[in-house]
């Protein structure tokens, strides 16, 4: 769109990209703390689900330990999915989301800030909780550190790719199932490398390659997802 060369009534220079990022970061952080119960839901879910697995399998620690990496990663996937449903919902309903897309110059900066907070409160928080959760699943102590590493490297991809699916479905009243159908296939590579790394490490194999793959997927998601999210939001806001 061309901008006619008229001096607007109260125009200042464009806000710095860093300022825009910081403003959005602060806003998301405050909003997350004000809705703390909602924010903590996925973490509570992770703990409950892991406890149920431990109870369901019973005392057979070895059987559980062999599958612990896969169980942990699947539950992290599902917990992330829970957070995605709410990612854009409130902002969509109150109209701030359309303002963000319209006014943000460039719009991917506030989107990135929003996703950063979202990741800190889901992926990063689950990474921190991973040792405790892993112990509930009888994961050997020597792979707990690696489990954290796989989550740290892989969870950004979950938030970023999932956000694209969330942005596509936010305009639908009951988008929950569709969101899962769209997001879960995107999560599959991360799941394979994440869970695979843990089970290989338990077998004594070097897993540097798997960690690099997880990082690569996350970096790819970081470069592509913000733009895909904006395109998807524009479709949802149409």
């Amino acid at each position, binding site marked *: 769109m061309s901008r006619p060369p008229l001096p607007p009534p109260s125009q200042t220079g464009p806000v710095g990209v860093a300022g825009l990022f910081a403003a959005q970061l602060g806003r998301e952080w405050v909003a997350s703390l004000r809705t703390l119960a909602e924010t903590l839901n996925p973490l509570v879910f992770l703990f409950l689900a892991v406890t149920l697995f431990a109870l369901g399998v019973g005392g057979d620690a070895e059987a559980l330990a062999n599958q612990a990496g896969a169980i942990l990663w699947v539950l992290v996937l599902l917990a992330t999915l829970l957070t995605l449903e709410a990612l854009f919902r409130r902002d969509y309903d*109150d109209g701030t989301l359309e303002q963000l897309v319209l006014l943000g110059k460039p719009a991917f900066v506030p989107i990135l800030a929003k996703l950063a907070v979202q990741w800190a409160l889901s992926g990063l928080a689950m990474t921190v909780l991973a040792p405790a959760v892993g112990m509930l699943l009888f994961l050997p102590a020597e792979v707990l550190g690696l489990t954290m590493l796989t989550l740290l490297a892989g969870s950004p991809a979950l938030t970023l790719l999932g956000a694209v699916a969330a942005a596509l479905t936010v305009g639908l009243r009951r988008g929950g199932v569709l969101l899962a159908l769209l997001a879960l296939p995107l999560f599959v590579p991360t799941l394979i490398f994440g869970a695979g790394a843990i089970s290989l490490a338990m077998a004594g194999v070097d897993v540097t390659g798997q960690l690099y793959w997880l990082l690569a997927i996350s970096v790819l998601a970081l470069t592509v997802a913000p733009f895909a999210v904006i395109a998807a939001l524009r479709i949802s*806001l149409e």
Partner: protein
Amino acid sequence: MAGAGQGSPVAPLLRLDGLGCQRDERWLFRDLTLDLNPGELLQLEGPNGSGKSTLLRVLLGLYPDFTGTLSVAECLYLGHRPGVSAVLTAAENLRWYAALQGVPADVAGALERVGMAGYENVVCQHMSAGQQRRIALARLALGGAPLWLLDEPLTALDTAGQDLVRALVAEHLAAGGAVVCATHQPLGIATARRMVLGAGARAVPAGAEP
């Protein structure tokens, strides 16, 4: 999208050329041609479903499915959804807008302008619909864009609030801004240009003073 006439002495803030939009195989409006210059108010009228909101969303670039060309200056949009986050305070909401728009965050001044001084630290979900609407209007008082696109700005406001909208619009026009306002109630500004959208029908050609 076509560029505006850069060479003319006063560049229009909004230029439509043969703008049309179809929805469900039916023309909502077509062949709209108009230049909106600084200081001008365009009032969009027409019955429910005549395409007023859709036209505004076309202007915003949120509805890509249209024919013709348009050129739009930097604009502020106030839609059906107030754009006020219920979990944030009035001041937090406005500071966020100031950052998005790149204008100084004169939160106290903007709130005082809309009669909400003292509500800086009140979380918006504890406010009434009309009060939230006033917080949304405070966005306009923050300034920052020459063109305002308002969709039913008088909704949920009491008489004083409606007078406030009129005053804000009049001030903006006097300062050299332009306003497009979709409304059922006239804003009561004598110089307003009107564009009537009819359900399914061709719109009254615009560009002429009423």
